[in-house]
């Protein structure tokens, strides 16, 4: 088991390095001139030249990239063009909203998605199954930002149950925090659970056709036990994959959701940075998000081994 985990960790390292190379190269070869952005419109060529030199933009590409990597290893994500502040410092207050949103959505969508998928598989072919799957396909096709718009219109504008915007941090109290996050959490959870329930259902149905399910029945196991004890764990691998994939989807979802619901998280920060062409922030956020997702994939890989003993060897 430990060997397997070590092996998965080792496999992730080149991916992270590649992510770094891509991130750095994109910004490096991009046409935007960082010196011009920093200096503003009225800068003379001499000033631009000095800025370039001060920030090291006139050095060769590999040197710049190497230094960037070294800084990353030291936990230094760079400095914002716009505010001139350390990016790590800028990111820290942004973490809580996004992590809170992410945690709630992952927990909720996993619970809803797996239960709905299992229910559909249990009742396969019935009207309940069909309705659940229609819901799942709809969730798959509905754009999150439009669903967010609809829920705001119904629950915030017309019913007034929730504030339209107005994020309350955890320090304002758990209940106000959850209340202010309710709509964005629901929108993202519904969409993610649609995806998870589809996969759960089809994986369960596939496993229920296996020979060992027949063996379990031949032993006299109840249908409930066949379903939960014998069929669920073997079908959990594709489900774990899809939960991992939906977390990647959430990264996208959060950029939109945080913009719509005015949540001061990392997604908003990225959109703001893009508007201001604050490349170091874009670079840093791409790097952070990709690293987190690689970490998620690593966890999913380790889950595989926990689920299926054949993978451990």
């Amino acid at each position, binding site marked *: 088991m430990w060997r397997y985990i070590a092996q998965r960790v080792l496999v992730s390292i080149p991916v992270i390095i590649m992510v770094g190379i891509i991130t750095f190269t994109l910004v490096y070869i991009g046409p935007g001139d960082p010196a011009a952005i920093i200096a503003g419109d009225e800068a003379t060529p001499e000033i631009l030249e000095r800025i370039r030199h001060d920030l090291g933009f006139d050095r060769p590409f590999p040197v710049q990239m190497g230094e960037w990597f070294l800084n990353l290893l030291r936990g230094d994500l760079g400095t914002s063009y716009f505010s001139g502040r350390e990016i790590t410092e800028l990111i820290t207050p942004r973490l809580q909203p996004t992590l809170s949103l992410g945690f709630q959505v992952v927990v909720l969508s996993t619970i809803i998605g797996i239960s709905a998928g299992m229910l559909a598989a249990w009742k396969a072919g019935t009207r309940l199954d069909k309705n659940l799957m229609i819901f799942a396909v709809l969730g798959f096709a509905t754009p999150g930002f439009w669903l967010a718009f609809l829920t705001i219109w119904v629950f915030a504008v017309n019913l007034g149950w929730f504030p339209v915007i107005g994020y309350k941090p955890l320090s304002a109290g758990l209940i106000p925090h959850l209340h202010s996050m309710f709509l964005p959490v629901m929108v993202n959870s519904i969409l993610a659970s649609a995806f998870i329930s589809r996969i759960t259902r089809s994986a369960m149905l596939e496993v229920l056709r296996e020979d*060992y399910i027949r063996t*379990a029945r*031949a032993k*006299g196991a109840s249908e409930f036990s066949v379903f939960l004890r014998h069929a669920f764990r073997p079908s959990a691998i594709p489900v774990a994959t899809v939960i991992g994939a939906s977390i990647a989807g959430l990264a996208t979802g959060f950029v939109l959701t945080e913009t719509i619901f005015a949540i001061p998280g990392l997604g908003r920060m990225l959109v703001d940075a893009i508007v201001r062409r604050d490349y170091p922030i874009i670079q840093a956020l791409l790097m952070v998000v990709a690293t987190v997702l690689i970490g998620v994939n690593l966890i999913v890989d380790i889950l595989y081994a926990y689920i299926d003993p054949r993978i451990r060897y």
Partner: protein
Amino acid sequence: MAEVLLKVKNLSTLFRTEGGVVKAVDNISFEVRAGETFALVGESGCGKSVTALSIMRLIPTPPGEITSGTVEFDGIDLLKLRNREMRAIRGSKIGMIFQEPMSSLNPVLTIQSQLAEPLKIHMKLSSGAANDRAEELVNMVGIPDARARLQQYPHELSGGQRQRIMIAMAMSCAPRLLIADEATTALDVTIQAQILDLMQDVTEQSGTSLLIITHNLGIVARYADRVAVMYAGKLREVSDASDMYAEPQHPYTVGLLRSVPRLDSDKGAPLTPIAGEIPDLTDLPDGCAFNPRCPWAVERCFTDDPELEEISTGKQVACFEHASVALHD
């Protein structure tokens, strides 16, 4: 004669497929006596596995459906039981072993948890007691180092070992009937004999009846007391195993016997496969389903379907021409 343990009467099971309705089992009747080994033989697709699954009520529904008949086990008609009552019989009164040792055990559960399961369900043993009993069972089926094996997963065992575990599992609650559905087909020949010997040993010790489903006539000859030959969903001949070899009375049985080598026949006697192909079950010929392949077929065979009839004590044949078939040598 020993008492009848299992009495299958007029059992029919059909499958509704896209190609049409398949009568996989068509009005068959046979009896298995207490303590005997009964073999159901036939080519693949003849309905013998469906028969076994019908007895256990494990036919996937839909597309399958048991449409008529009774399956009396120890005086109770299994087909009339409620699901809960049937579950109490599966794994406790009737054990079953399947063909695929590779896929018949759950890959994500330890051997111990799978072996202990029927003991917990039927004998209401505590986890500790069930685990102890599981260890005894592993010893019984001849797998060394039982304690360590119990903690392993199916993929860590060989095919033969897995089938031994299946036997241990099926025998764990001391059933009165053990059904072995092609239980050794997927194994190496040497392992096949070991597994069959093991099955015979454990069933003999406990007086359990053994219903062997197979296409292998060698197995029938060596292990079975009585045998039923199945073709296209129907039983064609039922007799004592020794009788069937000595005096086959149905053309299909004759064909089967001629297509396998026998040690007691003349050296150099040619093997003759049965002419023609297994018929399409959705579109069987009129009359006797074997008629396109039958060298003895007469006009009547193409219009009427012969019923199984008793021609001497313990011998039943479904053939109009059985008398001439019996004289073929």
